[in-house]
């Protein structure tokens, strides 16, 4: 009898759940992550001798609409050639009929993990700017992401930012594949896209998504999520949390997010205002485009006023002092020197 040693038991447990890559040029290395719609594996491309990430749907092929969505995701991402968007290499079908695509293997950390270690606000705002640039590029190409959240953003080892997981993205000019059979395919929610169907992740979901109002989904839906990400960067927490998905969705629909400065009074008021403006319940109350949001971030970094916040006179003076601290120091030093000289000469 072939008594299976413990190491072999563990090995078999790992590989039996792995995709069957026979007939492809890929060789499995290990699983990277599993989400609601699919799993991502690190594989080796044997023809090019490089490591790539392979994404595959986890449900059987019978739910053909999920396969269609995965292909659509690959096609959408393929058209978005931008340094902030993960590039797609290949699309195919495995021997068991499951659809897969391969993409660049991003070595880095998810934004939510990254922020646990790096809390410098300047640094985080620069990352946020890069996220805005990538999403703005997608919008310029008619693509809305619809599931932006810190878990879907990777920060590479050189500070590069990549927006991942375009599984529920939509080309605004195209119709979509039908929704999946299961109503709970994605992170406790769905990938479905029929009217009344809920898309995205509750904590970062816009009110129109929480309502399942597909007709209202637009690029301002992503602007809401960017506001929620900015909120997360400022406070270290999602705008709405606790309870079930349903409870969070109710909060998204009915409650304003808690003021970020309640969690940390040191958060600059202009940044708080920017996050809250981007997260306005009514899409019309949000930034009209990512360019305006991004511009506000740059202006804040440059010590200028931002469109989302009207300063008081005192705050304006305070900001001017903060921005011109060195100049003020020189003037004061000069004046002190003159006083000293005057007093000395006067003696």
């Amino acid at each position: 009898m072939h008594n299976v040693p413990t190491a072999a038991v563990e090995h078999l447990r790992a590989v039996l759940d792995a995709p069957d890559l026979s007939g492809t040029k890929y060789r499995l290395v290990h699983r990277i992550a599993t989400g609601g719609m699919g799993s991502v594996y690190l594989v080796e491309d044997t023809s090019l001798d490089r490591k790539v990430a392979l994404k595959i749907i986890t449900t059987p092929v019978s739910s053909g609409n999920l396969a269609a969505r995965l292909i659509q995701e690959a096609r959408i991402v393929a058209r978005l050639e931008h340094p902030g968007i993960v590039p797609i290499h290949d699309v195919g079908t495995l021997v068991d009929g499951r659809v897969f695509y391969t993409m660049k293997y991003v070595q880095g950390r998810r934004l939510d993990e990254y922020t646990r270690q790096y809390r410098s606000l300047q640094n985080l705002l620069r990352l946020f700017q890069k996220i805005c640039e990538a999403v703005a590029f997608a919008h310029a190409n008619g693509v809305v992401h619809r599931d932006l959240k810190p878990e879907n953003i990777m920060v590479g080892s050189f500070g590069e930012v990549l927006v991942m997981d375009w599984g529920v993205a939509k080309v605004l000019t195209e119709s979509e594949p039908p929704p999946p059979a299961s109503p709970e395919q994605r992170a406790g929610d769905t990938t479905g896209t029929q009217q009344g169907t809920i898309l995205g992740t509750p904590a970062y979901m816009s009110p129109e998504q929480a309502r399942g109002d597909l007709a209202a989904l637009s690029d301002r839906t992503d602007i809401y999520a960017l506001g929620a990400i900015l909120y997360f960067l400022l406070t270290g927490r999602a705008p709405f949390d606790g309870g079930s998905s349903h409870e969070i969705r109710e909060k998204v629909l009915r409650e304003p997010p808690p003021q970020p400065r309640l969690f940390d009074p040191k958060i600059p008021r202009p940044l708080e205002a920017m996050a809250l403006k981007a997260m306005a319940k009514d899409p019309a109350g949000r930034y009209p485009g990512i360019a305006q949001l991004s511009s506000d971030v740059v202006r804040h970094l440059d010590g200028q006023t931002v469109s989302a916040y009207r300063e008081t006179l005192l705050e304006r003076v305070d900001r001017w002092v903060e921005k011109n601290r060195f100049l003020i120091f020189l003037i004061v030093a000069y004046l002190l020197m003159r006083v000293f000289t005057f007093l000395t000469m006067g003696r």
Partner: protein
Amino acid sequence: MSIDTSIGGGKTKFPATRLSAVILTHSADEKERTRAFSTLIATYWKPIYKYVRIKWRKGNEDAKDLTQGFFAKALEKGYFDAYDPAKARFRTFLRLCVDGYVANENKAAGRIKRGGEATILSLDFEGAEQELLGDHAAAEASMDSFFDQEWVRSLFTLAVEHLAADLAGKGKQKHFELFLRYDIQAQGTEETLTYDQLAREFSLSVTDVTNYLAVARREFRTIVLDQLQSLTATEEEFRSEAKALLGVDL
């Protein structure tokens, strides 16, 4: 490879269908009931034997007798009729049955050796129990996982046997040899075996190695899931065990 003594019988028989052996142990048809017991014995005798050896600190012969005795008694007294899938996994229920059985056997042996239940000495059983309590709790937790681990090993060992027969029947011995070499023998050793090395060793192309292994693993997975289904009482338990064992959503 280990050499086992003859407990457990000869060549393992596998259920031809996906009917649950756990359910069939209640069958009115004696033949069906016996077949179901054979399936359970094939999978569980070794984990139980090892469990009795380690947890109950029994010698080799005692553990063999207790393992055989347990199954004989379970068949005779209908131990498994009391199993309620809503309360626990069958595996957990079985282990508790074994504990009860061995405890009773110990008690009976004590009565024989010491002249019944008469108290001869005034011993501080309560104090001794308190001293043991901490270690006992820890040992209990690790014995759970030990039993589970041995159960998985037994399941996989039977599946490998089945796979060998299956692939041989299809003229795919090389598929099995590759599987045995790479997925079983090379694991946990110093040897870092690559697909290139395997290809040279078996005079195949690397692509063939990938494909042969994939076929063998696919078959193996099917066999494991078939066995799992026969060892669980409900569809829910089956899905939960498959998720726990292989991480698969069925």
